[in-house]
């Protein structure tokens, strides 16, 4: 069960944003996307969620080209947590999370018992149940992020795409989120996550995709891809990598 990008390319006018990306990610793994700002990382997620159409290449899920799928069918499998997901201020938390059931309910039917059950369960898991009747306007940035996560999980996706979800979160919430994702991946979820923080990426991701200037310049297991040399080439800075006993990256230390 995997999501695959084949020669995925995207141009805007004559500006080439992404060139010939080939990658895939599957159930029960967390794949991270790292790279400098402006490298085109967010565009990847937009292409995978059919917000944008590729200029060349395609995206497929289990062999099915997503361009031939309806948005609704795609939304039953793929959910997105965007970094700046703006939410309308006057809706209540539970109403927003319930919107995540739309792909399964359709637009002309009503919510059923099952939908309310799933929404409740998902709100408990993301710890937003306690303020489910509050309006979005009264929530902090971190709390809103968790609401968006709850909504995404309410879609019961097989593939979860996250675009820098830890940007507005305090450290404890960031760590909570990543631990949560690790748990979900163990339960079968396929996770693709854009992360800014290389330390967090190296701790939580099984595999890493390195995107620079619209191209994939590195792909593979975290320990094999992240190296002092790569970081020097892609991010143009010197770091020291500390390894732990199990040959996993313990820390990426900048030289300040």
């Amino acid at each position: 069960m995997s999501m695959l990008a084949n020669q995925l390319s995207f141009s805007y006018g004559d500006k080439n944003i992404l060139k010939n990306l080939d990658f895939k990610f599957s159930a029960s793994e967390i794949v991270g996307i790292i790279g400098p700002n402006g490298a085109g990382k967010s565009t990847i997620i937009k292409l995978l969620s059919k917000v944008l159409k590729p200029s060349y290449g395609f995206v497929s899920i289990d062999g099915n080209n997503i361009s031939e799928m309806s948005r609704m069918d795609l939304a039953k499998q793929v959910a997105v947590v965007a970094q700046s997901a703006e939410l309308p201020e006057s809706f209540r938390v539970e109403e927003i999370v319930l919107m995540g059931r739309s792909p399964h309910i359709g637009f002309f039917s009503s919510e059923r018992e099952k939908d309310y059950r799933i929404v409740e369960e998902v709100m408990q898991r993301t710890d937003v149940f306690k303020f489910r009747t509050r309006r979005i306007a009264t929530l902090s940035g971190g709390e809103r992020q968790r609401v968006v996560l709850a909504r995404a999980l309410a879609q019961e996706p097989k593939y979860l795409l996250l675009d820098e979800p830890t940007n507005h979160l305090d450290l404890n919430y960031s760590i909570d989120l990543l631990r949560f994702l690790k748990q979900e991946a163990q339960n079968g979820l396929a996770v693709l996550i854009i992360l800014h923080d290389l330390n967090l990426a190296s701790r939580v991701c099984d595999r890493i995709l390195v995107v620079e200037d619209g191209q994939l310049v590195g792909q593979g297991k975290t320990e094999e891809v992240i190296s002092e040399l790569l970081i020097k080439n892609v991010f143009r800075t010197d770091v020291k990598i500390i390894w732990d006993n199990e040959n996993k990256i313990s820390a990426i230390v900048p030289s300040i």
Partner: protein
Amino acid sequence: MSEFKPKPAANSLRFMAIIFLALALIVVLIIATGIGSVAIPPGQVVAAVWHGISNNLVAVNDIIIWKIRLPRALLAALVGSLLSISGLAYQGIFRNPLADPYLLGVASGASFGAAFAIAFLPSIPLVASLGLPIISFLFSLLAVFLVVIFAFSNNKIPIINLILAGVVVGSSFSAGTSFIMITAKDRAVNILAWLLGSFSLSSWAKLASVLPFYIIVLVLLMLSARALNLLQLGEEQAMQLGLPVSSFKAVIIVLATLATAAAVSVSGIIGFVGLMVPHAARLAFGPDHRVLIPVSALLGAIFLVLADLLARTIISPEEIPIGIITALVGGPFFLYLLKKAEL
């Protein structure tokens, strides 16, 4: 097994409110049709309606109610309701509380058509029949068509283009209307009266011409209520939740615009209703379109029936154009909104 459901108490409260508004509308209609140069008590109003339905008009009051006042009140209710739900649809699609159904040139096109018909085709008894509405409807369609053509760019229609094209087409048609008024000076007052809105020449025929548009738009919007909610997340998130955003927007805008053109063609330009009523509904009932649509429909109907009542009684036997009444209410309403937002 938990009992969680989104606030069932609030849901039934909203339902009660809608029932209340529906009853209020019926009461308002009965009272409004009873008021006029001949005061007719509610009991006789109901009797007159019954006689009219069973094709058994006997008393003078029956005729006053059935031929004159009832179609007028019903048309006011229909137009008020239609403008309100169209306004709601526009605000939902454009995600802007200042969007109104005249954004795409409907009003200016209709005005030009009406001015043209009144000034240059008076020999045919157009005004009381459907001739004038048809011409004004066609011109409003032309205006919207031009707006869409001008706004087209790169196989897409960006919102900013739509708005700018609306301004361009709108001001051109307005200029045309003014020109006609200056040229056909003797008809200028008639044209102006039409422009400011009036239900004085209501008829069952006019009612029947607008009703199909209304029903289609109302049913479509009720079906689209959850999708409209989803759209408030922004287009990107709505797409990611399964909504075919572009086609959805196109269908809603086209139908709301057509319905607005139909309403304007029989009543003239009645401003503020499409802007105020959805706002008021939102302030009182929150952002859920499943509630907003019926509430706006009922509130708009009640509002315009009352406004029309005022329009024809305040300086009786003269009438104030109803557009003036709605503007007089609209100003303070927006002032109130402004003050509220500052808090």
